[in-house]
C-alpha cells in the first residue's frame, strides 16, 4: 500500500477510549465520505470497516487514535483512515485474519471482514502497538 502519511497532516482525529468514542470515530469517517461524494454502498462499507477496526483497537489495544483524511491519487479520490494503538500487538497475524477466529468473544470477522470491505488494507503490528491503515476509493 502506498504511503499516505502526508495526507494525515490535514486529518481529522478522534481518540478512542470508550465505546461511545467508536461511534464518534465512525461519524467522523461517515462525514468525510459523504463530503467526498462517495456512493452510499461504499460509504456504508467504509464506515462499517472503521467501526470494526475502531472497536478492535479499543478491545484488544486498549484504545488509541483514529485519523481520517481525503486523498487523491491518479485522478481518483478516496478516504484514508489510520488506526493507531499502543497495545500489546497481534501475536499471530495470519491467524487473526482468519474468518471466525477470535481471541475474544466476538464473531471473529472484524479484522478479516474489514479487509474485505475496503480497497487497500495494511497492518503493522509489534509489541509496541498496532497500526491499521485502510483506503476506500470513490466510484
Amino acid at each position, binding site marked *: 500500500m502506498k504511503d499516505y502519511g502526508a495526507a494525515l497532516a490535514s486529518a481529522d482525529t478522534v481518540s478512542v477510549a470508550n*465505546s461511545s468514542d467508536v*461511534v464518534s470515530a*465512525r461519524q467522523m469517517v*461517515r462525514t468525510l465520505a459523504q463530503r467526498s461524494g462517495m456512493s*452510499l*454502498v461504499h*460509504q*456504508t*462499507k467504509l*464506515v*462499517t470497516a472503521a*467501526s*470494526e477496526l475502531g*472497536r478492535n483497537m479499543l478491545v484488544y489495544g486498549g484504545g488509541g487514535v483514529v485519523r481520517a483524511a481525503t486523498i487523491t491519487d491518479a485522478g481518483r479520490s478516496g478516504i484514508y483512515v489510520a488506526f493507531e494503538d499502543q497495545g500489546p500487538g497481534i501475536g499471530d497475524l495470519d491467524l487473526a485474519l482468519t*474468518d471466525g477466529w477470535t481471541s475474544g468473544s*466476538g*464473531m471473529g*470477522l*472484524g479484522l*478479516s*471482514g*474489514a479487509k*474485505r*470491505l475496503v480497497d487497500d488494507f495494511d497492518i503493522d503490528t509489534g509489541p509496541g502497538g498496532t497500526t491499521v491503515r485502510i483506503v476506500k476509493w470513490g466510484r
Partner: protein
Amino acid sequence: MTTDSKMPVLVETLTAQRDAFLAQWTQAVGEDLQGRLSLAELGRELGELYDSILRGLNAADFDSRGEHFAETRSLLIELSRSRARQGFTPTETARSVFSLKEVLEPSLAADGKGAQQYLQFARLLDDLGLLTTEAYVRTREEIISSQAEQLLELSTPVVKLWDGVVGVPLVGTLDSARTQVVMEKLLQTLVDTDSTHAIIDITGVPTVDTQVAQHLLKTVVAARMMGAQCTISGIRPQIAQTIVALGIEFGDIPTNASLSDALRQALKEVAQDAADDARGLL
C-alpha cells in the same frame, strides 16, 4: 460567648454581628441569583450554613476537610445538589460561598489582626467554594447518566403490531447495554401479549457491524427459545452488501427489506396457524 478558638477576633465578630452579616450575605447572594430563589429560603439555607461554619471555627481550626466542618460540608453538598437540579450555574453556586468574604471584609480587614484572620478565613471559604463545585459536577453527572438510562428505555419500544405479532423498531446504535434492554422487553412482551411472531426492524440502525449482528442474533435466538418466530426487517441494499462482505451469516433467520413485507409474512403464518386450529389440527 467564650471560645478557645485561635481566631478570637474573627469568631467574636461573626458571633456578635451574626444577624447583620447574614442579612447582607442573603442580600448579596439573592442579587446574584436574580430572584430565582426567595430571600426567605436563601436566608434559611445560609443561616444554617453560617451557624455551622461558626461552630467549626469555635472548635478552633481552619481545616475545611477536618471533622469540625463535617456538618458544613454536608450542608454545602446538599446546597450544591439542589442548585444543580434547579439549573443554576456552577459559578452562581460557588459565589454563594464566596460572597460571604465580601460581606466580612469591611468589618475585619480594618486592622492588622483582623485582616490576618480574615485572610485565613478567606482560604477556608475558598476550599468550601471548591467543594460546592465538586458536588455540583457530581450531581450533574448523576443527572446525565440517569438521563442516558431513560433514553435507553425510551429508544427501545416494543409494540404490538397485530394479534400475535410484536415489532421492535430499532433506531441508532446497538450496543450491549441496549441489546440487553431490547431483549428483556421483547421477551416480556412476547409473554404478555401471547404473541408468536416478533419482527425486529433495523431501518433506523445506520451501521450493522459484527457487534450489532452478534447482538441481533442473540436476541433472535432468545426469542426462538420461547417459541416465537423472529424476523429481521429493514435490511437496506447497502447494509445487505456490507453484511455479505463482512462474512456474517444469518443462517435460517428470515430477513426482509421492509417492515411491511415482514408483517405480511407474519400475518400469513398467524392466519395459517388459526386455520389449522379451526380444523382441529392443533
